[in-house]
């Protein structure tokens, strides 16, 4: 498929052929992954129900660890429990920061706009709720990620669903099931990395760059320019992931937290400028959540939209985050579980909510015809006319860092499938770069359809494994809580 698309670009030079071929692929995978049932006229994709159920179930099963564990998570990130012998290793803060820079991306800026366009302001309510509940899912999967990580012969660490599915289930005597789930996960992870972690990012980065360079008649207006943009972005990503120029990755990763803070500040300025309208916006969000007007599927339709976009943004239950979290230095896997529950909080409860409030408060969502990141951009423009330019830079950085993070996830999955083969690694990375171009050359609805399908598919093998291993997580949590209660685990400052 990829090679055919590449040929199409060479022969025709237009993005139309890419778009058409990609649409066909996208429709097919969507039909399979988003198999839906109809309830009261609302189409409910079963895979979204699967994620909602997991988030609710794990919150109950771990007795609201998302709420109970919050303070302890902050303490761990601050380094309150890091002893001097752990200096120089990957700290909880570093593991979280790496995971967050992969998670915070266009899902937070463009994805939220998509949710509000489809589900109205009420989608925000369900998105926040989804963010809070899915902290428990993240807790479970990241604990497992550390528990079953593998220390390779060269001393490096490999972790993630591939390992807890295969090694964890093998412990329970389910060797074959574990192996099958791990392989299925790795395959979906590779495709997910090409979709949401890649094509969606370049698609929306281009959309915003196009907006600030004069729209359809501007520098990046034509379809050829879209491809050119994709190629340039692909070269930058390629220089890092194939060329091994890590310096660029380091610089971007340092800029991402700064941009995230800057972005939230800009949201607060917009909200401050419309201070009086905040209660009304909250009113719209709550009202829209329970009595949505004119939204297909009513409450259920809005709920599904909110949950879907939240999951797309914070990745809880998908199995991507455990790959990034597993390198942390700790001998208690559950500590990273605690820390990881901050990730959906930062991503969804803070950043996504900020975007949503900005869009709702400025009324930008009522305008017909704008979609994705352009809607967010317009919301900002109404208060800060110069902001779209800054947003373009932020979006480009977020897209770039998310692409780097996902190319790492995909490469780890490839390494697992092909036994650390160097050739497979290079082939995967080449395909990854191709999808950057495809993402830039296709239209938003096609890209988001494909991205969603692939990303959500990852949750199927991942969560089956997490359910089967829940007792392991529970045991780790219980022992850890006992040790905290009995004073075995205390802050470094309180140690004698």
């Amino acid at each position: 498929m990829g090679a055919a698309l590449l040929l199409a670009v060479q022969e025709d030079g237009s993005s139309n052929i890419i778009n058409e071929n990609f649409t066909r692929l996208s429709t097919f995978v969507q039909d399979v992954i988003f198999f839906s049932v109809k309830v009261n006229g609302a189409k409910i994709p079963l895979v979204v129900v699967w994620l909602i159920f997991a988030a609710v179930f794990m919150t109950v099963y771990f007795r609201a660890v998302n709420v109970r564990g919050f303070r302890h998570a902050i303490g761990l990130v601050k380094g309150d429990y890091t002893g001097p012998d752990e200096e120089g290793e990957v700290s909880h803060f570093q593991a979280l920061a790496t995971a967050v820079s992969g998670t915070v991306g266009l899902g937070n800026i463009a994805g939220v706009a998509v949710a509000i366009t489809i589900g109205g302001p009420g989608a925000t309510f369900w998105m926040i709720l989804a963010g809070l509940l899915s902290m428990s899912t993240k807790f479970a999967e990241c604990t497992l990620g550390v528990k079953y990580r593998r220390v390779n012969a060269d001393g490096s660490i490999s972790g993630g669903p591939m390992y807890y599915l295969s090694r964890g289930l093998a412990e329970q005597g389910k060797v074959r099931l574990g192996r099958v789930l791990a392989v299925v996960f790795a395959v979906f992870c590779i495709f997910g990395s090409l979709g949401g972690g890649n094509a969606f990012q370049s698609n929306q980065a281009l959309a915003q760059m196009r907006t600030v360079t004069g729209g359809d008649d501007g520098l990046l207006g034509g379809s050829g320019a879209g491809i050119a943009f994709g190629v340039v972005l692909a070269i930058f990503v390629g220089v890092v992931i194939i060329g091994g120029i890590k310096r660029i990755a380091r610089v971007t990763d340092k800029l991402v937290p700064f941009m995230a803070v800057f972005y939230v500040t800009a949201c607060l300025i917009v909200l401050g400028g419309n201070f009086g309208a905040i209660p009304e916006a909250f009113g719209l969000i709550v009202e829209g959540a329970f009595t949505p007007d004119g939204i297909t599927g009513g409450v259920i339709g809005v709920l599904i939209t909110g949950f879907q976009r939240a999951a797309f943004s914070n990745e809880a239950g998908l199995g991507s985050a455990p790959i990034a979290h597993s390198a942390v230095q700790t001998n208690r896997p559950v500590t990273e579980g605690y820390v990881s529950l901050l990730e959906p909080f930062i991503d969804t409860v803070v950043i996504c909510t900020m975007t949503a409030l900005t869009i709702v408060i400025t009324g930008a969502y009522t305008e017909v015809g704008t979609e994705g990141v352009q809607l967010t951009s317009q919301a900002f423009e109404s208060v800060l006319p110069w902001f779209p330019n800054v947003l373009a830079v932020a979006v480009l950085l977020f897209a770039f860092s998310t692409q780097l993070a996902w190319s790492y996830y995909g490469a780890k999955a490839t390494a697992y499938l092909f036994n650390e083969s160097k050739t497979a690694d290079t082939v995967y990375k080449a395909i990854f770069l191709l999808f950057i171009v495809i993402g830039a050359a296709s239209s938003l609805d096609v890209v988001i359809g494909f991205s969603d399908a692939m990303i959500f598919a990852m949750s199927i093998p991942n969560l089956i494994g997490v359910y089967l291993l829940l007792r392991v997580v529970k045991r780790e949590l219980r022992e850890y809580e006992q040790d905290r209660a009995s004073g075995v685990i205390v802050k470094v400052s309180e140690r004698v």
Partner: protein
Amino acid sequence: MPEVIVVGVDGSEAGARAAHFAAQHVQGPSLVVVVYVVPWSPYTVQTAEENERRSVAKQRETDSAQTSIVDPLLAELADKDLKAEGLVRHGHPAEVLCEIATERSASHIVVGRRGQSRVRSLLFGSTPGNLIQIATVPVTVVP
């Protein structure tokens, strides 16, 4: 118990001068603890690849500091019939030197200085500068 003197070295000439200064001024059965601190902060943002290899990198940094910086100084001190020990640690240099001084009940910390400009010190800080603010024992800065 012998007097313990902590010497902070950084691989530069100044670090070596600090060690020699300590060697000249110790009296009786003193112990010189030569410390190299690899500057490291738990609050930096790193890539996933860096994280995955961090343990390996830490070991490499420790070994290389031990063999190329600490061991040669220990050999020099041994030649002068002084009792000396070497340590390589990760962290904030000034803070780690103070921690070690406390751990070992040292009576004195000796460090060199690089003679960096005011702008550089302002931007990046300086270990002697930080050290004299937080140390709980006397600090000697060797020019």
